[in-house]
C-alpha cells in the first residue's frame, strides 16, 4: 500500500460527506467522554463516602430495591440490544428497522417509568435527598442517569419520526444509538456501586 501515490480523502469529493466518522458521531463521542468523567466523579465520591462510614447503609434508612431494579436493568439491556438490531436492519431495509426501534423506545420508557415508581416508593419510605448521604447520592447519581435516559428517549423518538418520514440518515441513527448505548452501558456501573 502506497498512500503517497494514492492519497486517501477523508471527505468524499462527490458527496462532501466524512468517510471516517460522521460529524454527529464524533461530536457525540466527545460529549460522551465528558459524561463518563461526570459519572466517574460522582461514583468516586460516593465510593469514598461509603467506605468512610462505619455502618453502611445507614441503619435508619430504607433499603434500596435491588431485585426490582435488576428486572429494570434487564429491560434496559434488552432495549439496547433491540436498538442494535434496528441499526443492523436499517442497513439492509429501512422499513424493517421500525419494529425493533419502537420496541427499544418502549422498553426505555418502561425503564424511566419504573424508576419514577421506585423514587415515589423510596420517598414514601423516608429516603429523601436530605435524609442521609445515601439518599443524597442515590437521587444525585440515579437522577443524573435518568435525565440522560429521558433525553436519549427524546432523541430516539425524533429518530423514529425521521424514519417514518423517510428522512433518517445512517449517521443520524448512529449518533442517537451511540448516546443510548452510553445510557445502557453506564447503568450497570451505577447499579453495582449504588444498589449492591
Amino acid at each position, binding site marked *: 500500500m502506497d*498512500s503517497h501515490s*494514492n492519497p486517501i480523502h477523508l471527505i*468524499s469529493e462527490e458527496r462532501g460527506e466524512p468517510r*471516517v466518522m460522521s460529524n454527529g458521531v464524533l461530536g457525540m463521542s466527545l460529549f460522551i467522554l465528558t459524561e463518563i468523567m461526570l459519572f*466517574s466523579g460522582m461514583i468516586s465520591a460516593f465510593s469514598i463516602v461509603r*467506605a*468512610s462510614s462505619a455502618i453502611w447503609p445507614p441503619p435508619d434508612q430504607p433499603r434500596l430495591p435491588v431485585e426490582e431494579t435488576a428486572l429494570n436493568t434487564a429491560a434496559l439491556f434488552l432495549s439496547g440490544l433491540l436498538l442494535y438490531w434496528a441499526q443492523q436492519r436499517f442497513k439492509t431495509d429501512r422499513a424493517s428497522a421500525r419494529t425493533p426501534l419502537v420496541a427499544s423506545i418502549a422498553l426505555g420508557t418502561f425503564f424511566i417509568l419504573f424508576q419514577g415508581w421506585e423514587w415515589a416508593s423510596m420517598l414514601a419510605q423516608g429516603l429523601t435527598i436530605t435524609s442521609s448521604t445515601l439518599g443524597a447520592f442515590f437521587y444525585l447519581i440515579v437522577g443524573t442517569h435518568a435525565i440522560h435516559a429521558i433525553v436519549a428517549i427524546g432523541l430516539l423518538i425524533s429518530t423514529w419520526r425521521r424514519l417514518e418520514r423517510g428522512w433518517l440518515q*445512517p449517521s443520524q441513527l448512529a449518533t442517537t444509538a451511540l448516546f443510548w448505548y452510553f445510557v445502557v452501558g453506564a447503568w450497570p456501573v451505577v447499579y453495582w456501586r449504588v444498589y449492591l
Partner: protein
Amino acid sequence: MTRAMTTKKMTRVQQLTRRVMSLASVLVAGTVVHSPRVADACSVCTAGRDEENQLAFLLSTIGMSLMPLVAIGTLVFVLWRRIQKLEVETAAGREPGRLNEHTPRA
C-alpha cells in the same frame, strides 16, 4: 593580645554556631522524616482512618486518572482503524463505501 583573644573567642562562637546549626538541621530533617503521620490528618476528610477508606481513595484516584486516557485512547484507536480501512480500500482502487458501509433501500 586583646585582639588575639577576641579573635579566639569569635572562632569559638562561630564553631558553636555551626554545631547548633548542624544540630538544628538534623532535628528539622528528623521532624520532616517522621511527620507524614501528622500530615495525614486532613481536617475536611476522613482519609487515613482505616484501610477500606484508603483503598477507596487509591482506587478512585487510579480510576479517575486513567479514565480520560482510556476514553480518548479508544476514540483515537477507532479513528485510526477506520483510516487504515479507508487506506486499504483506496489502495485497492475501490470506491470507499459510505459510513456504515451500506446504502439503505428507501
